[in-house]
């Protein structure tokens, strides 16, 4: 992989995209880059390298070398760097994909393809449904039967975009339950 400085902006490739093997590394990269003051955007990798359950971190192309140094200093493995124009990075939509279904004693929160259902009175997670990546069954195993305020959060154990989506369902559930109380 080479990230030598290029005048990408003159070709309309104003953004450089860091690609990662694991979704969790991408999340760490976002945190590290933002903390270091980079103008970071998250979004879908280009179709030719996309696996489905992944996310890319974009920085302005004139900052790519500095950003790579920061990531490497933090021990974050980079799979590749590609260049893209400003409009080539479809954003995550999960914050817009929230639905609630009231089942009387239970409330189901659906975010994208993930559903979390909890008991309204006790906050106990009673079911998790959806998703397709291997960490989702693990998260279901750890979360079902535990109250929302004590349960392990998907961010702590998850590695994938499905787990990230479940995290958003968990956060929306916790917020809804706190309002009920």
């Amino acid at each position, binding site marked *: 992989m080479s990230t030598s400085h290029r005048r990408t902006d003159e070709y309309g490739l104003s953004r450089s995209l860091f690609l990662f*093997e*694991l979704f969790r590394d991408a999340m760490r990269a976002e945190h590290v880059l933002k903390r270091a003051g980079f103008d970071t955007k998250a979004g*879908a*990798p280009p*179709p030719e*390298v*996309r*696996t*489905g*359950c*992944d996310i890319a971190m974009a920085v302005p192309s004139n900052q790519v070398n500095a950003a790579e140094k920061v990531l490497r200093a933090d021990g974050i493995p980079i799979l590749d760097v590609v260049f893209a124009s400003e409009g080539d990075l*479809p*954003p*995550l*939509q*999960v914050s*817009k*994909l929230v639905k609630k*279904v009231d*089942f009387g*004693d*239970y409330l*189901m929160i*659906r975010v*994208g*393809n*993930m*559903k979390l*259902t909890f*008991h309204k009175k006790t906050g106990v997670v*009673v*079911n*998790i*449904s*959806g*998703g*397709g*990546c*291997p*960490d*989702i*069954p*693990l998260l*279901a*195993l750890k979360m*079902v039967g535990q109250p929302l305020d004590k349960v392990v959060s998907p961010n702590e*154990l*998850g*590695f*994938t*975009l*499905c*787990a*990230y*989506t479940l995290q958003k369902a968990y956060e929306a559930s916790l917020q809804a339950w706190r309002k009920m109380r």
Partner: protein
Amino acid sequence: MLLLSGTMPIEDKSLIAGTIKYDGESISLGDRHIPKELGSIGAMAMMAASATAAQSLGIESPVGVIAGDMGQGAGSAQLYSYLTEQAGGLGANAVTMHYILPIRKPFLEFVEMLDYWKKRPFMIADAGSMLIAKATGSCKKFDLFTPDAGEICFLADPEAGHPAYVKSMLFEIDTTEVPQLIERAYASGNAPRYLLIKGPTDFLVDDRRIVNTISEPNIPALEPIGGTGDTITGMVSALISGGYEPMRACLIAARANRLAGQLTNPTPATPVFEMIKHVGEAVRKVADAT
């Protein structure tokens, strides 16, 4: 023979493969007993439902292959390797791919290898396998997908590489405008020949034509229960491997899932293993009547 593949959240690094046996309480693959707490998680719910449906209808017991994977992908990589290098020799007439980490290269190697099998199997995908099939433009290498409402939105959005990238306007129209989503999925080449779309109304689709819809009995409490879609996938896989015509297999599986749900009398807190206990009875009754 049917081959079912998927991951299970265990640290074990070795593949588990063998004929699936389900006795109404516990499940085993070959001589390997699966711990009860994992017996209805993820791919195991699909395998248990498939084995009990096959047994109930006198179909050859399915073979399962499971890899331990906690989400980091090593087990999934092993599973792709097994499918590419060994599964072709099993003589399976149907293969179902389920929970797996989407990894581009080994997935593509497997679907390309299918062209070299002595006889091409009927290919079914659900869960992570459906995500990677779409992300790699390989949907036409499959014969049947079994998406739910959120996943048909994803298939309908040509730009989305994952349901989390689906345009919110598609998400808004999901369950009420499924026919429109079906049309979009086929128009962009992101659907195989057959779709069984699971939801408040199940849609059975053959090459963009809606052949059947099933809405009764309507049991809203099934939607939150994790694994109730996996049971449909397991049943339809067993039926197809047993020689049932694909649309009839989809019809029986969709109806039997609702009947099994009704027999369970579920609440949103019911675990799926309570429903799997009724799958054998339900699929037999529905198959006899369909």
